[in-house]
């Protein structure tokens, strides 16, 4: 009786075999196709986070400036520009911070730089110090009267 029931069982084995092979092919293909770390935090490649963090900064940051230029920071601390970071005016200088002798820091063009912030503009907050440069100083350079690091009138 039982023997009769399983007499033609071979083709069942064949179907099961095919299913198992299918699952295995899927597993292997998946292992090859899904990139490393995908799904660790969500539906994305987790190492992409590390890729985003890998770039080298261009701006060194205020702390790097303070390592050597504490005298300038002391001057700045007393003036209205105390909140302005060095690289806001001097530009990105991580190369200089990494090797101070390699990159010479160019002094910014006083007149062109100062008006970037301090030229009269109706859209600026009224409390912010603004001038019409031609009326305020004619053709004179700002630094003839003002000290950029502590900009009160000399």
């Amino acid at each position, binding site marked *: 009786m039982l023997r009769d029931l399983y007499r033609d069982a*071979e083709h069942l*084995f064949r179907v099961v*075999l095919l299913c*198992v*092979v299918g699952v*295995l092919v899927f*597993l*292997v293909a*998946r*292992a*090859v196709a*899904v*990139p*490393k*770390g*995908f799904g*660790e*935090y*969500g*539906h*994305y*490649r*987790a*190492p*992409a*986070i*590390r*890729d*985003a*963090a*890998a*770039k*080298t*900064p*261009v*701006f060194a*940051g*205020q*702390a790097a400036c303070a390592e050597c230029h504490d005298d300038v920071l002391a001057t700045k601390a007393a003036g209205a*520009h105390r*909140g*302005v*970071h060095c*690289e*806001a*005016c001097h*530009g*990105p200088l991580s190369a200089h911070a990494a090797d101070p002798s390699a990159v010479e820091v160019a002094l910014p063009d006083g007149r062109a730089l100062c008006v*970037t*912030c301090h*030229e*009269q*503009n*109706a*859209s*600026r*907050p009224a409390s*912010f110090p603004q001038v019409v440069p031609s009326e305020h100083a004619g053709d004179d350079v700002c630094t003839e009267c003002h000290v950029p690091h502590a900009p009160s009138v000399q």
Partner: protein
Amino acid sequence: MDETRRDLLATGGKLLILTGAAGIGLDFVLAGEPEKAPNYDVMKHWWGMAIDIEKCIGCGNCVRACKAENDVPKEPFYFRTWVERYYVPDVDPREPHAEMQPKVDSPNGGYDGFDDVYRHEKSGKTFFVPKMCNQCAHSPCVQVCPVGATFESPDGVVLVDKSYCLGCRYCVQACPYGCRFIDPRTHTVDKCTLCYHRITKGLTTACCEACPTGARMLVDLKNPDDPIHEFLRSNKVQILKPQMATGAKVYYNGLDGSVR
């Protein structure tokens, strides 16, 4: 014949078991150990930004710093951050129902600063609004990405996996704040990363570094000592397009109702 088939099945079965084990093993080998940035735990931060419109002077330092730091194309239509100028006219007492029509401009994204075009206006008000990616916690751009190339990192920054991006532009259209563009060099999408390469090293973003008035503040909402908590407590703070429920994490102080 029967013997042969049995042998075949037995051998085949053994091979299958071996292949299966190999397949699962291969999965582990390819997945490898999860890699972590040194001295930085993604689970201990939740980044955002605070912008004080009352301090913004429209100098364009943030726009220039961002382009320098992140190698953003110099053409005047690629920006990770930009500054808009608003001019909001007074309500006309003769026509008080008329829809308010603010004028918005952003010449070269504010890269070259702003000419004082409103100096002769006797009425209305005008101000600057710095714009950038709002680092949404429920970001529409992430939801539409078909391949998982853009995502919210565990520390709350919306990032792009450039090796995965197809350049399909779905996210460019989905972003309600217009913060994304296709990089003409790679043909993949590009956006503000909140200077992820800086903040994971303990630095502030390039725009915050360059802002002379402190109008921008990088904030870590998971840090109980961060000044953001005092900022949110002591100011009337708003996000852009709150009705879209994006979970934006760029908090504006002094945001006028006319700003879109």
